[in-house]
């Protein structure tokens, strides 16, 4: 557990990382470093996006599955590691 906390701190301290959110399987954020309203917004919207992405991948080949999703936008990059039980969302602005 302590290692995980350490890793979390390290990630947070990396260059340009704006926030980290961990969401459980029901779409409820359980750990976050952003403020509440942003967190809730991100959690809800990203949940839907990941469901759609996963559905797309699996529709084409049911044995395949989504492992990582990166959304690059003008201002930042959202990286999502989805899983059955949780999502890990990190927002980074690498050119900071």
């Amino acid at each position, binding site marked *: 557990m302590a290692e995980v906390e350490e890793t979390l701190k390290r990630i947070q301290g*990396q260059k340009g*990382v704006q926030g980290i959110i961990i969401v459980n399987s029901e779409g409820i954020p*359980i750990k976050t470093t952003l403020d509440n309203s942003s967190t809730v917004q991100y959690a809800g919207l990203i949940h*839907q996006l990941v469901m759609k992405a996963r559905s797309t991948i699996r529709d084409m080949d049911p044995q395949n599955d989504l492992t990582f999703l990166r959304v690059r936008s003008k201002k930042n990059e959202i990286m999502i590691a989805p899983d059955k*039980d949780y999502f890990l969302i990190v927002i980074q602005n690498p050119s900071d």
Partner: protein
Amino acid sequence: MNISVVENTLAEHYCGYTQCSGHAERERERERERERASRCHGNLVANPYTNTATMSTSVAKLEKKKRRELVLRPSSGAINVSVSGLHGSTRRPNSVVASYSGRYFSVIGGSKMLEKSAIQAPRQAVRVFDEGNNDVTPRPLYQVAPGAVQAKASWFFVEEIPGGSASDQTSTTGGLIMPFFRSVLGSSRISTQSTIESMNEEIENTFSKQDMPINLPDVQKKREIVKEQVTEEMLKDIIDVYLSETSTISLLDIPNTFVSADADDAKAIIERNSQYAEVCRNRMGSHKYVDHSVQTVNGAAKNKQVQSDSITMVDAATTVTTWDIYDTLCSPEQDETMHSPEPEKASYTEAVVDTDRATAASSLKDMGVFGSSLNAESDLQLILSSEKFQHCFLVMERSILRNAFQPKLAAYRQLPVLEDPDSPVRPGTVEQRKEDIENSRSPALKCLWAFSCELSRGRSVSSMAWNKKNLDLLAVGYGELHSSNQKPGLVCCWSFKNLMWPERVIHCDSAVTSLDFSSNNPSQLAVGMHDGTIAVYNVQSQINISHVISSSKCPDKHLGPVWQLRWTQTELSLIEEQVESLSSVSADGRICKWFVFISDLNCTELMKLERVHNKKKKAGGNGTEKKSVLSELTPGLCFDFHPLDSGLYLVGTWEGLIHKCSCSNSQQFLQTYRKHFCPVNCIAWCPLSPELFLSCSSDWTIQLWKQDHCSPVLGFSSTQGAVYDIKWCPKWATVFGAIKEGQLEIWDLSANILDPVIVQPAAPGVTMKSLLFHTQSDCILVGDSAGHVTVYQLKNLRARESNQVNILEGLISSAASRQFCKTQPDKNRSIPTA
């Protein structure tokens, strides 16, 4: 909706004047009715709207004694269009009340209620007359057909009665009942409207002949539901329940048109069938049969309406995706494991897909949402401690770092560095970049990044080694080599995918002096330490890093620091596979080969490094060397195995001598190379040209030797400073790097043999300690005494042609020939131009 039974015959007052007297009277009546109604228990009422007039008259005749008529005369010039409420007529004893369109509750007519109602004020039938004493009481717009089913008993007590048909009372009194309708619905009413007029006369006639209304059958008896209080005693009572069988109710009986061939009367039937077939055949031309037409009576068709409960329809839709089908097919196989995660998985898909999935999981969704807030904390703990999550974290961290270091990593991997399309372009930098491109034509080193972390800060790098299989993995050993206080050593395995934190961290007991990764088992790392222990670690997973084996218990272990380790592969003729063995050279003057013996390392000695006395000193002496009985061993500082023949190796000693030895001969050196007069710090065979090797020593020189020459072919020296490390560049045969105290030198023999091509000074206060070339890209790693491992990229080295080896060999041969020329002047060779 509670609608009290309107026992009255009062109708809505339709006149336009709210103040008319009739209106007030109606109000009063209505009040009374309401009171009456409230006394009725559980009744439902509708407000009567219209009533018949003519009907009322006829009915009124029948029930005169029960009702009193209210006759309206025009007053104040207004024609009251009020209508008598014949609903009232329904309130007759035994009469049942109508229902009406819409969703009104049916009025309940029960005999009980009716009795009550009988007690109540008699109803009034309102008849309207105009000035000319004409009966203008409005007729009902709807009348129920006389033959309409009387007992819609089932409709009583039903909360909703859709449709507009009115139930009615006894057929005898006829369906003269006005429906209770409020709205313009009453489709049934509309449909029967056309028949109403025609039926009117008939009904009238029939009615006049009728008697008093017949009592309703018992079916319509008291329908009120009286709730009995269930008392405690009642619960304890033993109640006898009698079950009896009813007689068989035949619901449908279709007699068989087929008879089994085995039946008793089968024969008779078959005979009859055949006779009939005969008859049919003969019918055509026979005189026995005459065609005759017959008229049948057409039964009178009658419209019958039936009402039923409307079937509530609910739309259910579901989208099925390919993977859903696949999962369902595969899930029985994984049933046990999938049980608990399934509801959660399904439940969160529900959240997204709005259509109703007819799976059990949909009901779990609600449960899940409620339970989640309570479980959030425990969820977090569970998730954070799961392995998958940690792996997830790992990947995420690497992605983040890759983003952050993208240009540098791209340079390292020799990919074109892409401009970030979204970063704001600053005008100054564009020009600067152009300048850079023009200026930098001379070879240079570009610093990309440095591996360092908190753990390694302050510790000096002593050795580095590449992993043989995963070329991105680097092991770095930290340890103070020459200081008196020995801190416990550290080995960090760094990966190029995570530049900020090592993948594996191993704490060792004493300072680490040498490292090597095995090639047969790529996860095994051999670590040699300052106290002479050799330990082999398995770096597969961080959790169980512990040494697989260690030589600490071996009686023959090294007594001094293990200066170099090497895994070598030897081919045994009997077994045709490569066998790997670990060799080490240490300060106690022994070169040992290690093998595993009962889960411990044990060694055999390959060579003892005996101190070789200098022959020249003894020249004037006895002429023969005297070997002292106790031959001292001189510390060996470095060794290197021949790239092609792993039985051949070179050892550099403290004395400055380099011995060529063979694994098969542990008594004698094959050859000794003398040139250095200070400890030889490093020896390296040239990987591309196997006859050559380099050696470097603390006497500030680097010597290039050819295997069969006793003296070096070329010597390099630049500034004053001991050379600690030397490595050939694996890609270009003429390039090698050397670490001197305080600077890094890159020599390119094809360009210049007198001076290094690139000189990179160390950061102030920091001495460089160790050097490593990357096998595939043109990057150099340098470890220094502050614990940093800096990665440099070689730029603009002109040594990019493919025939490097030839150039090198040419150089060597020319240099060698010059030497020969000195010793053997008759051999004249032309010096080929490089």
